């Protein structure tokens, strides 16, 4: 736990007046407020610091204590303990680490430094939910195969189990709103919503772009030259392909409907594009070399 320089955070002098503090806070809040910086974690953290600095410096009592003990805050804590009984129990109620609040009030998160000086209940003033509940956000990390078919999953958010269907074809980075599953509202206000952001890992074999899949398949020299059958993997099982004679390297073949499911369009699939990677033989035997030399001569003679 480190000392936090609240004056520095608000970019003001120690001699700043209440009006200076208010103006500095508003100026920085306008820059970093999460409402104005959607999906920006750095801005959110910065805003929390600004909020905390303002919480301390705009309150004459808190500011006095902060100024008095400043960097000696550890002793301040001991001193204060002698005077008042502080409940130091921090609620650590097992919320999953991937869940957090988003939108709405941001005044709830204070640093350990703040809490050690003012207690865990000192922040937030009157910023509790007054009406609509706070939105919650969660990140769900899945593999490509997890979203190949729609599946039901139960998530635990703030101790409540939420059963949801993850539709096939969800995109990496896509956000799904689960209405009413955020924090409860107050005074008859509606609950907040739960926002789930999907992070989908790359597949080792198949690359995805929307509902199309791309894969590279090795093709041996002789099949490429003379044509033949080739078995290739799709997400749906193996498929037999007819390779045309004299197939060039990097030729692309489209397998219609063998791609990824189209989001929210049941039974509709994108295409799978196979790129042939012609593999040249290595470790040639003497006999192979002789035959290839013969072949090259045939070519050189214009055949």
């Amino acid at each position, binding site marked *: 736990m480190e000392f936090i320089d609240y004056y520095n955070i608000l970019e003001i002098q120690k001699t700043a007046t209440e009006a200076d503090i208010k103006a500095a806070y508003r100026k920085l*809040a*306008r820059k970093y407020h999460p409402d104005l910086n959607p*999906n920006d974690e750095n801005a959110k953290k910065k805003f929390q610091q600004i909020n905390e600095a303002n919480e301390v410096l705009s309150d004459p009592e808190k500011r006095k204590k902060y100024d008095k003990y400043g960097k000696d805050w550890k002793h301040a804590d001991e001193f204060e303990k002698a005077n008042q009984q502080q409940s130091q129990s921090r609620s650590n109620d097992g919320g999953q680490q991937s869940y957090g609040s988003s939108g709405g009030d941001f005044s709830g998160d204070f640093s350990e430094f703040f809490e050690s000086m003012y207690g865990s209940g000192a922040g937030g003033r009157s910023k509790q939910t*007054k*009406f*609509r509940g706070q939105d919650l956000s969660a990140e769900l990390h899945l593999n490509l195969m997890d979203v190949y078919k729609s599946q039901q999953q139960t998530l635990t958010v703030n101790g409540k189990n939420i059963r949801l269907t993850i539709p096939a074809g969800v995109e990496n980075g896509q956000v799904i709103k689960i209405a009413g599953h955020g924090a409860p509202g107050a*005074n008859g206000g*509606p609950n907040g919503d739960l926002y789930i952001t999907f992070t989908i890992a790359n597949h080792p074999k198949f690359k995805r772009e929307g509902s199309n899949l*791309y894969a590279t398949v090795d093709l041996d020299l002789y099949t490429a030259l003379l044509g033949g059958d080739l078995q290739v993997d799709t997400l749906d099982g193996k498929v037999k392909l007819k390779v045309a004679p004299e197939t060039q390297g990097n030729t692309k073949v489209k397998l219609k409907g063998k791609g990824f499911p189209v989001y929210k369009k049941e039974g509709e699939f994108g295409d799978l594009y196979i790129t042939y990677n012609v593999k040249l033989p290595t470790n040639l035997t003497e006999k192979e070399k002789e035959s290839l030399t013969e072949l090259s001569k045939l070519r050189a003679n214009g055949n």
Partner: protein
Amino acid sequence: METRDLILIEHFCNNHGIEFSFIDSLQTFGLIEVIIQEEQKYLQQDQLIEVEKMMRMHYDLDINMEGIDVISHLLKRINYLQQELIVTQNKLRLFVGED
């Protein structure tokens, strides 16, 4: 079923301790839609996120209506660009791992 999704503006304002004129101004600027039923004014529940956001801009950050109007347009633009960015990043993933 429909009225359950409507929030009485008076109730909303009382809970947040804000003046009704603020909601009126938002409506005048075309930022929200107010629904009138039996002489009572309502907001649609799915508008609350935006209304509360604009409320914070006004009361916490001291931004006037013109500013809120501009910011709302820019936030829509940011949202659109962020979606575009995700699509573009997903396209770039096609080339990850290739030489």
